[in-house]
């Protein structure tokens, strides 16, 4: 039986992160002036973080394959199970990445309305009545917020290629 559990995997991942950052700390330029070298403080943190991660790893391995306090019966099984379990979260991540990637083209107003509308539909449903309600919510909420920041607070938000054409 494997002794690796989820916590042990996280601890190993943290140790790897510490390793990468410690290696990257050698790229920090060391000037002749200044009393505390720019790499000293990050290295202190990394040593502490590595030690803590090591203790975490030992704790996790000592506890055995699965944490006793967790009920694993309701955990999703298989790829389909996992996808449906994390469906909403994946929608949020995916649509957010799409929103950010298309921002230079759509701008914050059009992109924001589209993002909120699509997210509302993805999380709430795609029936015609809901579509209309979601469109109104997205338009009013993002449009209102955009107006507050643009006209009220004087913030220049990204206009995007489409919007700036008008």
């Amino acid at each position, binding site marked *: 039986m494997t002794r690796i559990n*989820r*916590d042990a995997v*996280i601890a190993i991942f*943290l140790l790897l992160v510490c390793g990468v*950052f410690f290696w*990257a*700390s050698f790229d*920090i*330029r060391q*000037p002749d*002036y*200044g*009393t*505390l070298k*720019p*790499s000293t*403080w*990050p290295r202190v*943190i990394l040593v*502490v*973080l590595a030690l*803590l*991660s090591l*203790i*975490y790893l030992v*704790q996790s391995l000592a506890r055995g394959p699965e944490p006793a306090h967790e009920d694993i019966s309701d955990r999703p099984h298989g790829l389909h199970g996992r996808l449906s379990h*994390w*469906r*909403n*979260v994946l929608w*949020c*991540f995916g649509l*957010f*990445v799409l*929103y*950010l990637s298309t*921002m230079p083209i759509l701008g*914050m107003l059009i992109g*924001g309305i589209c*993002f*909120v509308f699509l*997210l*509302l539909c993805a*999380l*709430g*449903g795609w029936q015609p009545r809901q579509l209309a309600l979601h469109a109104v*919510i*997205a338009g009013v*909420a*993002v449009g209102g*917020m*955009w107006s*507050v*920041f643009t006209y009220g*607070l*004087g*913030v*220049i*938000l*990204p206009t995007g290629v489409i919007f700036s054409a008008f």
Partner: protein
Amino acid sequence: MVIDNILLAVAEIANVKTLALMMVGVAAGLISGAIPGFTIAMAVVLTLPFTFGMPPAQGLATMVSVLVGGLSGGLMSGILTGIPGTPSSVATTFDGFPLARSGEPGFALGLGVWSSFCGGIISAFMLVMFAPRLSRIGLEFQPWDYFMLVMFALTVTASLSGRNLIKGLIAGALGLLVRTVGEDEAIGMARFNFGNDTLLQGFDFIAVLIGLFAFSQLLSDVRDPEAARRSLAERERIQARIEHWRAIKAIVKRWTTVIRSALIGVFTGILPGAGGSIANILAYDQARKASKQPDSFGTGNPEGVIAPESSNNAVEGGALITMMALGIPGDVTTAIMLGALLIHDVVPSPSFISDEPVLAYSIFIAFFLANFIMLGMQSFMLRIFVLVTRIRMYMLAAVILGFSTIGVFAINNVEFDIWTLLWFGILGFFMRQFGFPLAPMILGVVLGNIAELNLSRAFAISDDVTLFFTRPWALFFLIVALFSAVFPLFQNARAEGKKWVRFYAPTLLAAIAVPLWMMGGTVRPGLSLICAGFAAYLIYKARQSVVEA
């Protein structure tokens, strides 16, 4: 001089625009506090982008209002639906909900509203009295002491905010590490940018905070598709009218509970990391122990509403004392407030009150006023709350996610900040899923620069490392940090009935007697002798009980 500063502060706050913003802030706080899953910290952090264009006093007054409103908002859903709006109002539901169920929702709400008001006002008085005094002590701190104070704040937050101390400490260290990315503050050398020029500016810490706290919370709220489509008031129709006079009479009759609970709240708030979620349970427990009818608790005892509501509103007064006097945030919400000060180029430190007296007094006045505004707005907001409870969770989450992007972009007008929001939102979500507390990480992010700057200053003065252990205040914070790190072990051992736990408190007292003695003067060596004497007595008693056992 003090009068001049107060008058100037009144002029900053008592104008139509600021008062209107404070009312909006209280209303927003009340609503966000009332919605389960939406924390007060989330409301405060989302208010931050709106305050950029405001003068510092106005911006901070708005944020203080959100904070005060949020602390009181939790009681509405807790009493009327049995679901606490925030962790700070968990204990309110124990008696508030049964009281409402027994046909007295208006009385229960009245008790909650007026107890919250009393708790807030008592803590506001404590804030005004103690913050300037504590800041005078803070002026004694040298870089070594200040560095150890930051370490203490991180350790105590890690030990109090989660079940696993190691996870809390890892979160704190991660927060410190995140803050090192980009050019270092002292001499501007590039660190951990991995060849990417955008990373030279580092992660904007407001984007990090919104991502870690708000974004990840929203993802957690909509994770379950069924729960995401549910609204709070689906089960029953909510209808109530606050009974003010009856509640006031009941509270006046139980004034000792109000004062005791408020003091518990203030003290808990002063401790870094211990917030309203701990204070309301502690106050409830103490009220039950002090009651002549402890068995009636849980069935609708008015004291069961008064105690937690007085304490959770008093917490922020205590947290603001630590923030304003020492520049160390008492909890996540004050960490965000500290961030707001930094945005307005005000560096929180022990000299904050003497350097920025008008701003400091503006915060005091705003805290007072916000409590009165909260009281006046509760009845009106109750109607809005009833409407909000009909909105489905996924709608709120989607709209707030959309708003977060606009708010985060507005900080620096940089698109990279929105990516920061996304990455830290994902990180925060996984940290929540894997049981890592977010509070130590947020404190690490906020305090990282302060720690490094003081470390740098300390080495600029002297390269003697022993000063971190031999200076009285540094030693004091080191001792308290070590004991707070052992605190979770102490709690477990006490539950298992281990004998060594009897020596924990006396050993702590004996240990802190040493730096107190080293501080010199008259009062502190006197305190040191009292601590040492009391420690000796406790050790004697503990030894006796061990021998008898």
